[in-house]
């Protein structure tokens, strides 16, 4: 059934809350207002104030609440209104939540999901538009998930809620209105497994989130020019599905990585390094990363700034030409 990405999130939350009484939602405006982006619409009416908790504007406390509740066996789903605001809860995410299990010798499982909308395209400016996965991908103990489609966002959110580990669930806000096919009935999408969204033989494009769609658009045009692009939707950033990446690169011998986040020090760097280290000599051409320029996300100049299909086309052509 055709479902919007944001509705798919709402469905996942409702289904998991109905399934497991220990799941609850906490964040700003999640209750009465149904969420700043309507992700939690109707949950308060259906499940009550005990399980859908509005907080003051206190991001560190929101994550702390989730951490403490998980320590005591509950399964919190915290919402941070914009991924940029995760910066306000860095200590609680990185020094507390991510490390509790390890530091205390496995005494606790930490089944926490932190959901946050990331990404630009709404002219929201530098403090409301960042893609932040690289900030967290290098933190042992966290999982970072970035679904690109309504099908995947629902299945992955359900998996994240059932996962006994802290999951940072980054939804791209430019995708909230995107419609896609979502099956009726129960299904899950596994964390840690990438998916080939378009099979091809000439070049591997590893893409995340909104760039999956930009890459699909690029691939359509390139097909007309005789270039057959394989698009691997990572879906999960950490744990990184190297097996799928390597399987694809073994096939094509050419690599492009496309993400919306700043190119420098982005997750593309990790993917390229992994391929170079672990498949030495496999690449027929130098790899190419598509990412944003090294500037803050602009307010009115997003068209110039945001990586897009044209950028993916240029990258593919450069690795094909070499």
């Amino acid at each position, binding site marked *: 059934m055709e479902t919007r990405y944001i509705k798919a999130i709402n469905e996942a939350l409702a289904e998991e809350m109905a399934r497991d009484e220990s799941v*609850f939602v906490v964040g700003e405006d999640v209750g009465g207002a149904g969420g700043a982006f309507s992700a939690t619409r109707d949950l308060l009416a259906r499940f009550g104030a*005990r399980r859908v*908790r509005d*907080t*003051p504007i*206190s991001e*560190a*406390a929101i*994550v*702390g*609440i*989730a*951490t*403490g*509740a*998980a*320590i*005591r*066996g*509950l399964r*919190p789903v915290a919402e941070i209104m914009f991924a940029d605001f995760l910066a306000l809860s860095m*200590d*609680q995410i990185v*020094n*507390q939540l991510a490390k*509790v*299990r*390890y*530091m*205390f*010798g*496995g*005494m*606790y*499982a*930490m089944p926490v999901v932190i959901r946050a909308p990331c990404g630009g395209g709404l002219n929201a400016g530098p403090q409301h538009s960042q893609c932040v996965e690289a900030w967290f991908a290098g933190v*042992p*103990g966290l*999982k970072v998930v970035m679904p690109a489609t309504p099908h995947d966002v629902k299945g992955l959110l359900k998996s994240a809620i059932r996962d*006994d*580990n802290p999951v940072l669930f980054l939804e791209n806000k430019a995708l909230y209105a995107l419609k896609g096919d979502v099956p009726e009935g129960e299904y899950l999408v596994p964390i840690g497994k990438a998916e080939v969204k378009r099979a091809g033989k000439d070049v591997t494009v590893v893409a995340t989130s909104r760039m999956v769609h930009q890459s699909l658009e690029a691939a359509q045009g390139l097909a007309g020019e005789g270039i057959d692009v394989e698009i691997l939707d990572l879906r999960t950033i950490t744990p990184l599905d190297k097996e799928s990446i390597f399987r694809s690169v073994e096939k094509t011998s050419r690599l492009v990585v496309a993400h919306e986040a700043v190119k420098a020090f982005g997750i593309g760097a990790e993917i390229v390094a992994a391929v170079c280290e672990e498949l030495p000599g496999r690449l027929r051409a130098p790899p190419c990363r598509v990412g944003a320029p090294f500037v803050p996300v602009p307010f009115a100049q997003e068209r110039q700034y945001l990586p897009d299909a044209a950028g993916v086309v240029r990258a593919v052509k450069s690795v094909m030409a070499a």
Partner: protein
Amino acid sequence: MTDAREQQLAILHSMVRIRRVEERLSELFSQGKVPGFIHVSIGQEAIAAGVCSCLGPEDSVLTTHRGHGHALAKGIGLKRFMAEIYGRRDGFCKGKSGSMHIADKGVGVVGANGIVGGGLPISLGTALASQYRGEKTVTVCFFGDGASNQGTFHESLNIAALWSLPLVFCCENNGWAQFTPQARYMKVESVAERAEGYGIPGVTVDGNDVVRVREAALEAVARARRGDGPTLLECKVRRWLGHYVGDAQKYRPPEDVKGAKALDPIRAYADQLSAAGAIGPDGLADIELRVKAEIDEAVRFAGESPPAGPEELFTDVYA
């Protein structure tokens, strides 16, 4: 012996035990037996013993880098506690936490935190769980005067008040935030004054007087248990030693150090019990002997426990 009398002796025992454990740890640390840093709570025993005497095993306690006393008073086993501080496999955390992250889920010691103010938001969650499940259990969050300036303190008091969480915020005010004295980091005289700003009761007691501490804690815990919300309980003490073991305290006026040791909370309580006939002339010596025996055994246990194996480096990153 009456219950009340037993309780009193238990509290005295708890205080002596904390003192002697901390002294022994300081000694062992100076001998190079303990990895990392340790921060002892010598002089602050009345707070740990007084507050924890009001709690049951189902209640939760969050503590700090200076948390040995709270963990011990809450009932953590000394042998595995010692092994943990030594970084050995038989420690509560398999040797992976050490002094600053002491934890035992079994007795409600949620875990010690190395980030000043880091435990406050977490205590909201543990208290929320009690409320969520309709339990009558409470959380006590211990923190220091320094932590009351972290943003998390303010976020946490506000939310706890708003949600009437079953929580006691227990501030051990020893007048020093690491190397800086209170007058140089806070405008107001008492941390408890800040409670009014959040709409909760703020109480200041003499942290050297275990009877006063326990009285105030009983009331705060009772409030929390019956659903009337949190209390900010400030216990004022003097910090006897440096921030960490090995800190020469060059930043501190010598009279301040001397003055700190003028009142010994253990001596004060023992004298009080003695005057009331609650403890005989050999009572304290008796406790000291039992405590020493327990510590000796724990130190031997810790010393004999093997270090965490190399494979342990990679375990428990994920569930």
